[in-house]
Each structure stands twice: as C-alpha cells, then as structure tokens.
C-alpha cells in the first residue's frame, strides 16, 4: 500500500477537491459532508472526469399523502457528485450511480494525519 500526498488539510476545506496522478491514472479527492472521498477520476459511463464535477444534493419529488405531486426539492442528506461530460450522478458516500446502481465509481481509502491528506493506493 502506498500513500500519496493529496493536499494540506487546510487547503482542502468542505466542498473542495484535489486530483493526484498515480501510475498514469488520476484520483480525485473530495471533502464533503465532513469526510474525505477518493475516486478514480473516470466515469463508468464513457470515461469522463467525474471528480471534476459539481457537488449537488439529490433531487427528490414531493409526493403528498394523497399521492399527488407537490414539486421537487433537494435532499438534505444525499449528496451527489456529477460527471461533467454527461451528467451521470453518483452518491458521494457510496460511489454508486444514482440512476443505475449496477454502476459505481472506483473508491480509494484516504488518510488524514498531521495536517495532511493522503490517498492510499
């Protein structure tokens, strides 16, 4: 196992991301929901740079008890990262594709110590 330096902790606040290269492949590291998340920067759809994409909460429908549609809202819990090439969305915590759970991002472990963030490969 190899630890690759990603960033000083102070340089990776909530919502920020950094990308590192390892053996010709890019790994993106994102801090979101007070956790670090590291993914291979390749979308399983067509290979887009998914870690460069927007962080945005899952959109959900508001359905009243009588089953009528009442609009849409952003989830207060589920955060997605969106591939900027085509818009495929992935749950930041599970890496699973929101539209098709059979697809997912390749995850890496992260370590944070002594004020620095590392990804484990």
């Amino acid at each position, binding site marked *: 196992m190899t630890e690759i330096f990603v960033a000083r902790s102070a340089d990776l606040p909530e919502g920020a991301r950094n990308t590192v290269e390892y053996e010709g492949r890019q790994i993106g590291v994102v801090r979101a929901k007070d956790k670090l998340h590291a993914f291979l*920067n390749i979308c399983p759809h067509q290979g887009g740079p998914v870690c460069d994409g927007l962080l945005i909460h899952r959109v959900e429908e508001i359905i009243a008890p009588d089953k009528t549609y009442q609009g849409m809202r952003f989830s207060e819990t589920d955060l997605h990262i969106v591939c*900027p090439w085509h818009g495929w969305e992935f749950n930041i915590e599970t890496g699973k594709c929101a539209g098709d759970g059979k697809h997912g991002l390749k995850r890496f472990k992260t370590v944070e110590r002594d004020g620095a963030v590392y990804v484990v490969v």
Partner: protein
Amino acid sequence: MQYRSSTPEFDRTIEGFHTGEHLVNARRQADARKLDDVLIVDVDCHHYETDNFAEIIEYIEDPVIKQGAVNTFAYKGSAAILMDQPGYQDIGGRVSRYLERKHEKIPKTANPREVEQTLRWMNALSVDYACLFPTPMLFMGLHPQAEVEVAMARAYNRWLTDNVLPSNPRLRSMLYLPFNDPEATYQMVKEYGHKPGVIGFMVVSTRYKPVYDNAFMKTYALLEELGLPLSFHASYNWNDQLVSMTNRFITAHAVGFTFFNAVHCANWIVNGLPERFPKLKVIWIESGLAWIPWLMQRLDNDYRMRTSEAPALKKLPSEYMRDMFYTTQPMEMVNNHEALELTFKMINADTQLLYSSDYPHWDMDLPSTIWDLPFLSEKSKRNILGLNAKRIFNLDVSDRFPDAKGKSDGMVDTFKQQVTPA
C-alpha cells in the same frame, strides 16, 4: 465561471476552461485504443453560430430582415431572429462545458474561434474529419416566417463556406436547408452544392412540412444527380401538441428527438421516394438507433395488410430502411447487448451506420462507444467509425492517411448489395 449548487458550500467556480483539458480522458482512451491509426469521421457535431452572430447577420441578404435583425440583436442578442425552446440541456449546470466553452480562451486568428475550438475536441477524440452543424438554428424550422428561415440559412451558409470550411480541410458540413420554402431549398442546393467542404445538405426534421410534397422533387433529383446525401437532423419542439404533454426535458428529448425523424422516414418510404430517387443517399441523424427496428416492424406489419396504400413500393419498408444511413449518437447503451446487436443487424450497420459524436452537446458519444462493442469485428468498427462515411461522402482522406490515396477500402456498394428481407 460560477456554478450554483444545492447549497452555497458546494457552489463551484471554474476558471481557465480548455476543451483539450476537459477531454483529456478522451485523449487517453484514443491513445489506449490506437485510434489515431483509425479513420474517424464524425458525421454530426456542432458549433454555436451565436458566438459569431453579429458577423453572421451581416451576411443576411434581405435588406429589411437584416436591418431589423441588426438593431434588435443590439438589445436582444441572437433571439432577435432565432427561435429558442424551453429547457436546460446542460442539466442545470451539471454538464459544465455549455457555459465554459463560451468563455474558453482561444488565440485570435483570422479564423472564427470555432475553428480552433473544434480542432481541440477533434484532436482529443481522434476525429479526423467533422461534419459541423449549427446549434440554435436547429429550431429555425419552427419560425412562423419562412422568409426569415431562408434569410438565416443563406447568411449562415455563406458565412460558413466563406470563413470556416476553407480554413481547414478537416472541417466539412452538410449545409442547412430552409425546407419551409421549397424553391429556396432548391436554389440552395444549386448554388452551394459545389462549394469546397460541402458534403451534402441537411434538413432539420423538427418542422411541419411533409417530405412527399411535390415541390421538393426537383431538389431530391438535383441532390441525386450531384451525388450529395440528404440528411434529416433531429431536434425537438416542446410546444408540439403531442410533445407538450411531457413535463420534463428528459421526456421531451427521449420522445421528441425520435418522433419527427420517424414521421419523415415513414412518409419517405410509404410515398415511394426511394423508388423515385434510388441513388439518393438519405441519412437520419441524432435520433439514436432504437427507433429504427420499431419503425421497421410497424411499417412491415402494416404494409402487408395495406399494400394498396403504398403502391409505389416494390419491397418491404424495412428493406428500404436498410438502404438508408443512420448516425450512431445518442446510441442507446442498453444493459442488454443482445438488443443492440440485433439493432445493428437489422439496419445493416456494417455498411449503413455512421459514427457521430454530437459534441459538444450533453449526450455526446466518444468513438470508444463503437470501438468497445464486443460483438463487432475490427473491420465493422472501422466501417462505422469512418469508412462508411468515406464511401458515401466520397471523402478524400489522403491529407490524414496519405497511404490510403487511390486505394479501395473494399467496401460493399450499398445500392447493389443483396439485402435479406425481414
């Protein structure tokens, strides 16, 4: 550029967009597959003519339309003369290049900025030749004034053939036809059919003008004589009475981008136009592929019962459809490869299918979508990615592949080959 997210903490600022960097993973894919050694012709991709709109409207010939357009443009932008549609194709900023590409820094040269911008993405995708189409003009067929569509089509085509196509031999176009005016359509083919870089003509299918109208017959005859393909490029009209029942863009797109092409294609066949113009090459663009087996099956089934309503036909509708050409994008990448493989078989993909990316639009497809298909031979992949286009557009590719000059690619003549009935 500032992108607003669901909460301010995830708002994003992106600076210094570069098409080549945005597509670095595409370049890596191309390198891994050695696609630079493969002829790739992108039969459907786009630029934004609105990036040069002030320049283009100066090309409008009609003095009254031009005077009005120039003054209105000053406060209303391109909506001065172009139609627009509701919806947000960038999925609310999720597909970020829509906004970013507009502000991409391109060194100033004598050429319009899309020349360099287009070459950037072509190089990333390993595309050798690209057939460039406009973007907002794809709604002009819905303009209530046919003369405005004619004015814009003539201005755009003149601007494109004066400024873009001559700048690089890798850039080609099937020129926009103002199809709501049959006479202007005919004149356009007559006037521009021999211009360098023009490899055919394109009708935006989103309109309410039937292809069987007698007024178009001389245009089809001229195209057939010139050996230039006629293509129908899909689009959508959210205000169409049927499509207006959809309440999300996903539905308007999934249905709308197939609907108009399906109607025109059915009309084309049932009215016997393939019998009247047997050498005219017809291409259906940007409706994906899944609609083709659907229409083949529907028409064949009905035709066997209602043969008298399509008396010009000498074979099954599906057989005529197998003589037509189709672009790949947006290829429905279903989980079941058997469905896609069957579709390829039903449309004779080996000779009839043409790769298209639709870059920079949100549902663009990379060449790897074809190259990685497990059921295709390498020969088939090469046909679909470039050799079919080389054949039907009669492309000289010797500037990219000098060794190919004068050599036959061994392709089947689609108009002579035997096809198996459904």
